[in-house]
């Protein structure tokens, strides 16, 4: 058996020089310091993405993307297909944990200033993937075509319409018409299973290649140390094995959550019924949803909502471009402002999410 693997390796190696890759992997080190734990969230996010792709493809085998059949097909998956409830529940749970893990990954990279030169492209691709995750969440939410998802999509797309100039055309583009109906479902279905995964995969490839090529970022306090004082761990196999162990734990967590708290389906969407009381967006949109409630209906000439959306848009762009305006960190100087801004953002998100959840 050993002989077989050796022969197979040699066969491939002779053609594509695997030795170079093994040598390259062997030379890669992961810095070990008190914040090393945060390095694992990138890998965990990647794992969630893989889970989403696998369970998503499985759901596609039975899901029907039309307003007449979507709800019934999900019902069929939940009730008739063996382990269908498990696959759908894992998809739903993994989606939520994916976004949570991406939040943690993004903030940890931010606070470590790992985005600084020369890793600007890694940061930008990561941020674009973060926005896409929210897009995945938004588009996937409508697919079961139940009352909650129907009204959440109505409200969500309506907010898009408040953006000046491009808002209205954008809203009509997303809805596939004036209203949320079967056309919207077809569109968001297309986004969710074809357009977004395609773009996301390209971004992910760039992101991962850059990480391999540039190595894992050393935090500033670590970089200043003498090379003899720097503790490191080989990427392969030490770090990879730890990653794998963590993935195994995460998979178990998903299984437990899916079994004990399976995803529910609710009632089929009826465009001519009233919105149910206490309707709320998914938790990751809650802080924005809640903040918009505090804006007065008019601020000077503009609508309060429009101002709110523009502020969130501006904050998002500033956040996306942080490597380009935080020059101090790139020069290796400490930039406390970045920390305060980050802390403010974290507190803001947590507090408003809590308020939104309680209301």
């Amino acid at each position, binding site marked *: 058996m050993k002989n077989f693997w050796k022969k197979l390796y040699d066969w491939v190696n002779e053609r594509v020089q695997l030795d170079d890759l093994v040598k390259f992997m062997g030379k890669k080190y992961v810095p070990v310091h008190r914040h090393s734990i945060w390095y694992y969230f990138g890998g965990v996010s990647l794992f969630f993405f893989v889970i989403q792709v696998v369970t998503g493809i*499985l759901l596609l*085998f039975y899901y029907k993307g039309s307003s007449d059949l979507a709800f019934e097909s999900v019902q069929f998956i939940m009730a008739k297909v*063996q382990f269908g409830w*498990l*696959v759908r529940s894992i998809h739903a749970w993994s989606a939520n944990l994916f976004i949570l893990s991406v939040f943690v990954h993004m903030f940890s990279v931010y606070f470590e200033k790992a985005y600084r030169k020369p890793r600007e492209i890694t940061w930008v691709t990561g941020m674009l993937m973060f926005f896409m995750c929210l897009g995945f969440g938004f588009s996937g939410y409508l697919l079961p075509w139940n009352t909650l998802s129907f009204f959440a999509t109505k409200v969500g797309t309506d907010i898009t319409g408040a953006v000046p100039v491009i808002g209205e055309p954008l809203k009509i583009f997303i809805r596939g018409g004036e209203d949320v109906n079967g056309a919207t479902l077809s569109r968001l279905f297309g986004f969710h299973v074809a357009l977004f995964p395609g773009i996301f995969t390209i971004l992910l490839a760039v992101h991962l290649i850059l990480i391999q090529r540039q190595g894992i970022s050393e935090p500033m306090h670590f970089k200043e140390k003498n090379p003899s004082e720097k503790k490191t761990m080989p990427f392969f196999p030490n770090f990879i094995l730890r990653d794998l162990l963590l993935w195994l734990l995460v998979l178990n967590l998903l299984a437990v959550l899916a079994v004990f708290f399976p995803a529910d389906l609710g009632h089929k969407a009826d465009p001519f019924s009233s919105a149910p009381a206490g309707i709320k967006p998914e938790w990751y949109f809650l802080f924005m949803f809640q903040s918009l409630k505090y804006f007065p209906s008019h601020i000077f000439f503009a609508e309060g909502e429009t101002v709110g959306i523009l502020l969130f848009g501006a904050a998002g762009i500033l956040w996306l471009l942080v490597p380009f305006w935080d020059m101090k960190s790139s020069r290796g100087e400490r930039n406390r402002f970045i920390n305060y801004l980050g802390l403010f953002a974290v507190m803001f998100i947590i507090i408003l999410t809590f308020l939104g959840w309680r209301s």
Partner: protein
Amino acid sequence: MVFDLDKPVRKNRRDFLKYFLGAGLLGFLSSIFYPLFSYLKPPVQGEVEVTSVSAGKLSDFAKDSGKIIRFGKKPVILIRSANGELRALSAVCTHLGCTVQYRKDLELIWCACHNGKYDINGRNISGPPPRPLDPYTVIVKGDEIFISKIS
């Protein structure tokens, strides 16, 4: 006398660990692949078994013509010959399952997929079909035609 107890014990321990981990891995993999393969198996859809269907009015059905009738999930071809006789046959070609049609010009049942031919009684007479078409019973009550399975 010196007992070398160490070696066999260690070997046993190692074997135990090996089987323990192996069984764990096997259990883990089956807990993933069992649900996965079960999921992929299409669920059996309960359906009402059809034994008889109405095929419309005799007066609406021209001589020397044929039409496809839906019999449960399967198509059945109903033919009225030039002399007014009615016949019902399975419309599923016995070659590769295409749906056959009545050809007025040939006075035959013809399958477009591979030029299979059956005579009006469903006997395979030319082309690739290996077997005749399964016959159904035709009953006329008043003006209405009924097709039923041959029990």
